[in-house]
Structure formats: C-alpha cells, structure tokens
C-alpha cells in the first residue's frame, strides 16, 4: 500500500525505536546497551527519513499530509534526535535505570514532532503537540537530583498547560467560525474571513500554543528554567529539534491565513518584544544554559520575522533558518555537554581555559556563537540575510533595523562566552579534555559545515524554496 510507505519514517520511529526502548525499559538497566542501540537505530531512522524525502501522499482521512515540506522537516527532526542521542553517551544527569525511558521519550517526542509537521488537521496537530510537550515534561523531570528535576518539570508543565489551553480556545473559535479544522479547507476560507474578529483571535490564540513551543513572548518564561533544570542532552533536544518542529508548524499555520496585515502586525510586535527581551536578559546570565535559553528566545524572534513576511521567500528563509538553529544550538550544547563534568550545569566562567584544554571545542563554540550572531561567512549569516531580505521585500524595514540592533546586543554576550573560552585563565590549571576521536570528528564536521554551508548555501536554499512551494 502506497499510503503506508509514506508513513514510513513515522512507523519506523514509533515501532522500531519506540518498541525497542519500551522493551528495554522493562529489562534491567544497562546504559551502554541502551546508548549503542539508540545510536544505531536513530542513525537508521535518519537514513529512512532521508530516503523518504520525496514521498507524498494524504493519509488518515486527509488529516495527514506528506509532502516535501514535511519530509524535509522530518529529516531535520531525525537528525535532531540522532544528535541529541549522541550527547547521551554518559548521561550523568539521569539515573541509569531511567536511560531506556529517556530514549523512549526522546523517540516518542520526535515521533510527535514528525506528526506535527505533517498534520493538516488542526485537531491532530494539537494532539501531536501535546504529545511532544508531555514527553518533554517527563524528560525534564528525570533530571537528578530528583527534587530539582521535578520542580522544573512542574513549572514547565504549568506554563505548557496554560499555553495549550489558550491554543485549544483558539481552535474552538476557529472551528466555531469556520466549521472545520482541516487546513486545506481553512486555507480557502480563512483569507476571506480574516477580517472577522473572532477568526483572527482564534488564529492568534491557536498560534499561542506554538509560541510556547518556540518560547516566544508571552510564553517564553519557561525556557531558562527548563534549560537550566533539564539534563544537558534533554536541554539540547529542547533547544534544537523541538524548535524545528515548532517552526514548521508555525509556518503551516500562518500560511493558512494568506497575507493578512493585521496578523503580521501582531506577529511583528511579538517578534520585537521577544528578541529584545531575550537578548537584554541574556546579557546578565551567568549560567551557560540560561544564556543559551535567552538566546533561543531571541532566535525565535528572528524566526518570526521570516514568517510574518508571509511570502514564499519568507517561509523558505525560515525553513533554512530552522536548520541553522538546529545545527548551531546543537554545537553549543555539544561543547557544553563535553565540558560539563558529571552532567552538571556549566557557568560561563567554567569555560575559562577551554582554549588550551580543548582547542577544537573552543573553536566550535566560537564558530557556533559567531554564526548565531549572524557573522559571515557562516550559515547563520546566510540565514539572517534570507530572513531579513524576505522581510524588507514586504516593507518591514524598521523591523529589520531593530533586529539588526538586537544582533549587536546578542554579540555582546556571545563575546563574553568567547572571551571566557579564549582569554580567561582558569582558577587552576585544567587537565586536557580527552575527547574521543568521534567527538573531534563531529566537532570538525560541525565547524566545516557551519562555514561551508555559509559559503555555498545555494543547494540548501534551493531545497528550502522547493519545500515551501508545496505549501500553496
């Protein structure tokens, strides 16, 4: 059956990955076995997702749409899962007997996100969103010491629950005024109906649930606490794959409304507040993960700029930027996990002397941060250029100016990190970090890719443009 082939990556993730770890979680704990299996299976999963790039089809009574757009995001998600699992090698923040469950939850979360990017019925989308959120709540609560993890998870859950309540209310309004939650039908109905207040309120509130995932104002408060309170690989996963999925959904939802000025204005306001608040607060952070969290918030603001252009170019640039966020945030967390002794959190000052203890990590960190700040010739710059070009094409020149000044602010705290890594003397001489060859290799690949994709972005851009063409 053709239909089931199109569902291949999800089926694999669900039954093979999920099934194996469901079984493992019932067996006695064996972290090594779990890690190796997870790596192998996730790598195969990535392969399957890549193989499924050109699948298309409508499944499940047209609530599920497989197209190039969704498949590209699924590849990114599979990659995010693989990378997040890669970081779990020692996984000291989580008790050994929870490791299998950790992989299970990561897998289920990825599965949920894959469904999010393909779901074209808003109800399915909502349930998938909830599934991914709940997996993350539980993952966050696994962090040791238990009390800390649980407290963070509860806080995360409370904000998440209110965001999803807001989203549900929005969905109710949309359904009430349009009589359907099917994306294709909404696409024909909404542009004409966008003048009606209940419709625009409904769409905005619906977006609220995504704002939570992407940590945009006013649902951004959770990010720093959760990043800080979650185990490092989990935080990495939240910062990478989770964002990618949220971006995909946001694109799909906003694309529903056609080109609506009112909505664009609302998004513009949110973008400005989000990035300014994120960047300004990041300056005073001492904990690296908190800083990364605020920087993620700010990145969310930039993402919004691309989306609110509401043009194919804007969506394409956002798609491109999703990859940028995925790779760069992962690079930062990769360094963080390797530096963090015993799986604890890392203060910016702890990076002192990184330059001498591990030059390759220091280089990776610097490249990632410069790229996040949008310095050429990195992939981050290309991403920002695309975003801003799309926005200026629609006349949001002032917004771009504000965003650029935010970039300058962000550079200040990125430089603080680089300063710590390259210039600060450690309080006592640090032993050289013994990185495995594969770690060094990965770091090298990441650095190379960051620069190379910045210099030769054409194929990636072409892919992103092809992806959004199917949005219609």
């Amino acid at each position, binding site marked *: 059956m053709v239909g089931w082939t199109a569902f291949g990556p999800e089926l694999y993730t669900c039954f093979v990955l999920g099934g194996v770890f469901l079984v493992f979680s019932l067996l006695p704990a064996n972290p090594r076995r779990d890690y190796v299996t997870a790596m192998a299976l996730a790598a195969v999963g990535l392969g399957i997702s890549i193989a499924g790039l050109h699948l298309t089809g409508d499944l499940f009574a047209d609530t599920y749409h497989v197209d190039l757009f969704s498949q590209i995001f699924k590849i990114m998600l599979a990659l995010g899962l693989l990378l997040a699992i890669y970081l779990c090698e020692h996984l000291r923040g989580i008790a050994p007997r929870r490791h299998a469950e950790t992989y299970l939850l990561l897998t289920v979360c990825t599965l949920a996100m894959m469904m999010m990017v393909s779901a074209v019925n808003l109800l399915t989308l909502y349930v998938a969103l909830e599934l991914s959120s709940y997996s993350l709540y539980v993952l966050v609560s696994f962090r040791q010491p238990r009390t800390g993890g649980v407290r963070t998870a509860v806080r995360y859950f409370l904000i998440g629950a209110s965001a999803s309540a807001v989203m549900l209310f929005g969905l109710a309004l949309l359904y009430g005024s349009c009589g359907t939650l099917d994306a294709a039908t909404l696409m024909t109905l909404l542009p004409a109906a966008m003048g009606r207040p209940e419709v625009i309120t409904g769409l905005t509130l619906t977006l609220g649930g995504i704002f939570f995932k992407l940590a945009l104002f006013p649902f951004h408060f959770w990010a720093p606490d959760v990043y800080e309170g979650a185990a490092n690989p989990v935080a990495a996963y939240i910062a990478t794959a989770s964002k990618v999925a949220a971006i995909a959904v946001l694109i799909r939802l906003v694309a529903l409304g056609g080109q609506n000025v009112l909505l664009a204005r609302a998004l513009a306001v949110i973008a400005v507040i989000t990035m300014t608040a994120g960047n300004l607060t990041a300056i005073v952070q001492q904990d690296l993960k908190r800083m990364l969290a605020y920087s993620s918030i700010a990145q969310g603001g930039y993402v919004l700029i691309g989306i609110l252009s509401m043009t194919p170019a804007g969506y394409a640039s956002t798609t491109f930027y999703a990859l940028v966020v995925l790779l760069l945030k992962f690079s930062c967390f990769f360094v963080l996990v390797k530096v963090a002794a015993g799986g604890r959190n890392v203060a910016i000052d702890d990076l002192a002397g990184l330059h001498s203890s591990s030059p390759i990590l220091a280089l990776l960190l610097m490249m990632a941060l*410069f790229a996040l700040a949008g*310095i*050429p*010739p990195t992939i981050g*710059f290309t991403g920002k*250029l*695309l975003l*801003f*070009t799309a926005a*200026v*094409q629609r006349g949001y*020149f002032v917004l*771009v*100016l504000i965003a*650029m*000044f935010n*970039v*300058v602010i962000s*550079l*200040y705290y990125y*430089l603080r990190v*680089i*300063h710590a890594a*390259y*210039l600060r003397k450690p309080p006592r001489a640090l032993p050289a970090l013994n990185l495995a060859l594969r770690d060094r290799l990965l770091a090298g690949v990441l650095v190379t890719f960051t620069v190379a994709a910045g210099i*030769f*972005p*054409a194929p990636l*851009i*072409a892919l992103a*443009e092809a992806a959004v063409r199917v949005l219609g």
Partner: protein
Amino acid sequence: MPIAYAGFPFLSAILLSCVIGLVTILFMPAAQHRRIKMVSAVCSGITLVISIYLFLAYDKSAGGLQFAERIAWVPSLGISYFNAADGFSLPMLLLTGIVFFTAVLTMWELETRVKEFFALVFLLVAGVFGLFMAQDLFFLFVWFDVSLFPMYLLIAVWGSTRKEYAAMKLTLYLLAGSALILPGIIYLVVKSGLSTFDMLALMQPGTFTPFQQKLAFLLFFIGFGILAGVWPLHTWSPVGHVAAPTAVSMIHAGVLMKIGAFGILRVGIYLCPLGWQYWAPLMALLATVGIVYGVFVGLAQTDLKYVIGYSSVSHMGIVGLGLSTLTIDGLNGAVFQMFAHGVMTALFFSSVGYIYDRTHTKAIAELGGLSHSMPRAASFMILAALAGIGVPCLASFWAELMVFIAAFKVYPLYGTLAVCALVVSALFMLRVVQRTCYGPPRSRYAQLPDVSFKLGIPRIILATVIITFGFFPSLMYTMIQTASLPLMGGLPW
C-alpha cells in the same frame, strides 16, 4: 562602465594566497614559530607582489573595471562572486599588500600564541582584500564582517592597555555599523526590484528614487563611517589603536579604517549619488569637526599611541572632507589620502611599536633622547611624523593639498578651519618628536639596541613608499583619475 575580464584570476589569487596561508598555519604544529612566520611572510609577500603587478598592469587608458572575474554563486538570490579592480580599488589593494607584508615582518619577534596570531591576521587581511575588490554587495558585506571579527581576539589576546575593554568596545561599535549596512544593502537590493546583489547592475541611474538614495546613503554613511572614524563615532578607534599589538595597529589604522571610507565611496556614493549630494554638507561638517577635534585632543595626550590614534581621526577627517566636496579634486585627494595615511600611519605605529617593545613605555614624559641610543628607530618615527604633518615631497602632502584646494572652493569656512588645525597639528607633532627623540639622553635607554636590519626591512619599505609617492604623485594621481573622472561624469546632476 567598461569591464575587462582577466585571463588569469589575479584578484582571486590574492585571496587564495591568504586562504592558503590561513589553512597552512592552522594545520601546522603550534610550537614551530619560525616556520609559521616564514609561511606568513611568503604568503603575504605573494599578495604584495600581485598587488604591485596589478597596480602597474592596469590599463589606465582603458579605465573601468579590469581583472574582472565572475561566477554565479546563489542564482536564486542574484548573488555572484564578482571581483574587479578599478582606479579606486587598486591603490587600496596596493596599500593592503604593503601594510600586510610589513606588518608580518614587524611581528617577527612575537612569541605568544604565534600560530593563532598569524592565522587571525590572515583571516583579517583576506577580508580586507576581498572588500576592496568585491563588486557584489553580498560579498562586500561578507568581507566587511570577516575583516572585523579577528580584531576582537587580536586585541583581546595580544593587546596591552585595557585590551579587553578596547576589544569589546571596538567589536560592538563596528558591528553596530554593520547592523546599519546590512539593512541598507537589503533595502537597496529589494527596492531595485532587480533581485541582484551585483553593484554594476544596481548602479544604473534611475534605479532608485531620491528618497531611497537618501535613506540608504545615510545608513551606509553611518555604518561605514563608524569604521572610518567619523566624528562622533570615532571613540572606539583611539582606544583600539592603543590596545592593539603593533602589527594589528598597523593593519587597523593603516587598512581597516580605509575600509570604512572605501565603503562609503564604493557603496554609498556609487549606488546613491543623490543621497551623497544631499548629505554632503553634513559629511563636511562632521569631517571638519573631526579634523579639529582630533588635533586638539591629540595635543592633550601623554601616550604616544593615543597621539597617533587621534591624529588618525584627524587624518580620516581629511578623507571625509574630500569626499564631501563632490568634486573630482576632492575625490582624488580623498583616495590619495587614504593611501598615504595608510602607509604613513603604519610606519608610525611600527616605529612606536619598536620603541615600546624596547623601553616598555609609551608615555611621552618618560621617553627622551632616543635619537642617541637608537637613531634608526628615531629617524623612522620622525619621517612618519613629518609625513603626518604633510611636509612637501612626502605622499600625504599631495593628498592633503588636493583636498584643501577642493574644500576651499566648496566650503571655504571648513577649509580654513581644517588648514588651521593642521598647522596646530604640525606644532604638536613636532613637540612629540622633540620630547621623545631629542633632549637629554636617558641613561636607562642608553643600552637598548637599535633597529636591526631584519626588523628594519618593513620600516624601510614603508618609508620608501612614502617618499616615492611623495616625489612621483602622478603615479597615484593618474590611477585614481581613471575612476574619479567617469564617476563624476556619469552622475545624474
């Protein structure tokens, strides 16, 4: 504008030479200082040789863009790798080659983190070269940022006085500049409706409305102006000069600040001539204030490097004044001044750097009588100071002369003020020279070695260049003329 495509990609060869140097150094063991320096010298030498060759090989009678090379890069966005050189960029390329080569030689004695130092310098210079030859806005901006970022580490790691503060301030200031330039570029590209970053295509008259030109020019003027040290956005510059290690100061003051002025010229003036015309009075005002301010603040300084730093502000003011006159003479003078000031200031910093390395002080009050203990070092410094004053038969004399002639025609008041300020600057430069090089010899400096032959090479090269172009200004003048005449002739007013 006529374009002559190159048979051999000389311009890319310059960049490639930098990249090869960078990569080679990155893969060399950090302990092999001497080899790293050798590689640096060879690669920078190649860039110098190519840039000299290009300067001589440029067909002045044909004019226009020559040695062009072009590859489509991201076709969907209209980005192409497009390099070419004209009468404005060739002097800059030559300048960069000279300063780069001499800076590498000047740092021959460096011992700390040698590998990273030269790697970063190569990265920086690659950006500078790239910017001077880029004809595509995208690449121009990329090179612009590439040339800025190594500065942070270069100053923060190898610098001296308040280095971390200076590095952070410099980086943030310059990045704030690029925060204006990038939106400006995007704005122009989008508004042109051509969806191309190709400057030649965007340059066509009538592409932009007057309002668009005014807005974009303002963005470029401020954005690049920060880097060019335009008053009141110059404050990063003296601090940065002082904190930076010698070679970086040389590159920084000698080349990097020129990027700013060159950016205003290449992007602002070429693409937004109406904006240039509109904002010229403001440019003139700021430039004059900069000249006067630089001189008087320089008077009050007690630190040798601060003196040069503020004199740089003043000299870059002259460039700005030249650009703001909207005349051929002004343009010629401005570009000539960029070249002359680059070489002169590089010499100045390298001699001061030598003195600092030996005496471990930059305070004017603590120095004195150096001409007794190290006569060669003192003479390089005196030559640089004289060039800075604008003594005839040295390169900067001609540059300043042309600018002032043009300024007197267009802005008599500003011109007068600037000339008066220059007279004052002559006084204070001479005072500095007198305090440091003459006077009673200090016993504690008596035993210090003079500039050795090896360390003297870069300084001799710089001095030679200053004197050569002082005696034969037409070498430079005719070159610049090939670009400034068509520019002024093709303008819409």
